[in-house]
């Protein structure tokens, strides 16, 4: 039983023509696997490495540098919600917004709610400083957030 489905393998291979070598497909492949499987397991790393003709340690080295991809002991929930803590958001209550959401849902930064619905993360500058404090739900930004509007958004996920 392989970690990567045939569909995922085909999606990874479809990236090959965009680059002059297969190693450049490391990040696209990691994103595809991470989005689908909600973590990148050891088996998945080995299989990505086989596809890209790399050593598994090379894929692991790149993957762990970015601090973005979850390993199998701490997989992502169904959604991922990032709270910006950099200067423009921190000046307008971004850190306190994160804290209020963590308290409300009983979850710590970097972890997932017990029901698996969402993973909460702090982020460095999300590039939406005109709408501070801002949050990112998966990869969509929401601006001028309050604890109330954030909870309403999360409850609708």
């Amino acid at each position, binding site marked *: 039983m392989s970690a990567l489905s045939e569909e995922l393998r085909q999606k990874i291979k479809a990236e090959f023509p965009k680059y002059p070598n297969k190693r450049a497909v490391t990040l*696209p492949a990691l994103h595809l696997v991470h989005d689908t499987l909600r973590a990148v397991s050891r088996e998945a790393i080995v299989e990505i490495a086989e596809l890209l003709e790399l050593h598994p340690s090379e894929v692991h080295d790149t993957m762990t540098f970015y601090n*973005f991809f979850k390993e199998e002991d701490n997989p992502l929930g169904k959604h991922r919600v990032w709270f910006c803590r*950099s*200067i423009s958001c921190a000046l307008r209550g971004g850190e306190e917004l*994160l804290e209020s959401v963590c308290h409300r849902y009983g979850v710590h930064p970097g972890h997932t709610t017990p029901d698996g619905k969402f993973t909460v993360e702090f982020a460095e*500058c999300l590039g939406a*400083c005109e709408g501070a404090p801002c949050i990112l739900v998966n990869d969509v930004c929401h601006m001028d957030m309050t604890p109330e509007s954030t909870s309403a958004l999360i409850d609708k996920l």
Partner: protein
Amino acid sequence: MATFEPVLFARINKSDSASIRSYQADGGYSRLKEFLSMAPGDVTNIVKDSGLRGRGGAGFPTGLKWTFLPKDHPGPIYLAINADESEPGTFNNRYLMEKDPHQLIEGIILACHAIRSNRAYLYLRYEYGTSYRTLDAAIRECHAAGILGKNILGTGFDLDIILHRGAGAYICGEETGLIESLEGKRAWPRIKPPFPAIEGLFRKPTIVNNVETLCCVTHILYRGTEWFKSIGVPPDPSNPRDPGSYGPKLYCISGHVNRPCCVELPLGVTARELIEEHAGGVWKGRKAKAVVPGGISMGFLSDKELDTKLDFAGPGKVGCLGLGTAAVVVVDDHTSMVDVLHNCCRFMSHESCGQCTPCREGTHWMTKILDRIRSGNGRTEDLDLLLEVAGSMGIIPGTTICGLSDGAAWPVKNAINKFRPEFEDYIRSRKSSITSAQKMMAAH
């Protein structure tokens, strides 16, 4: 003062501004065929003559950078577009990509023609999901219209643009870190030389340009160099090395202001004008205590320095590192500079790639020293210790490969040199301002 008519932002408030139909209705791509029939060197010369300087932070002359490519290179040449916009306070490129992607694509096509590149890689920070989908749709529209792909508009010029998403690392905005990341490796900046123009992406000659820079290229071709040079600040005659600060610039204003925004103005407006006339003034009727002139890595202006011109030369005259990304962040007089500096240092410590010891250790220890001060256990000699650490890291003292470290040191130098009494008072008071939210994140 006459109102400045926006150029880069001329279309962003139109409905449907991102579509090719709307862009073409406003004259976009109308002269692309004409420009593609010019000799590549002539396009480069126009950009060089315009005085355009890179908008990503370093302000290097764009046309000059293009001339560093080897002549008559037989193999591929690449353009890498730096859309890893991650400097705290900066969001101008997000507007350009979400609201007017074809203005950027036309600039990319023109730049690729000038540098004889048939493939461009746009390195986009992962967090800009909306930009990703907007650009992806715009690129598809171009292929359908014969504006990208093989034999563009019958001129014989081929170009593909590949979107490449990052994975949340500030260092990927450093041009050689970006290249390493694109190659599928950890984003460790390279030792230079060789510069990317000689040996860059996939070991081929590569030009790395910022999104706003390439949008300017589009308008320079359509409107000419004289138009571009009629905007902004000419070179300082007393400084033979100053190439001037020409053209429009997107200024981001955030933090403690009434109306945070991104506004297009001629290079050289003052921080005070941005705050008072464009961002609705400091919020809650307060005064500005400190202002970040161009992203946190440029340091701080004090309240006495708000009339500093935000052109490429201005911030440096008052001890800041430079104009950076022209992202202005306003800190009001009810906020502790100790807390603000801690936020900056925590960011840099989190984002140091770890390759060079002075940066990896320096950013970490500066944050730790500020943690100690903010726990109520600081010593006045900690301030000199912070300055000593800050003075020993970066390209300027010559101890690191890239400039992240200078950008980590500068807020420390400026904060302590310009606000020292506040730091001393804080230490003497033995108070603690560490919040429960910060403790929660530190435990993570």
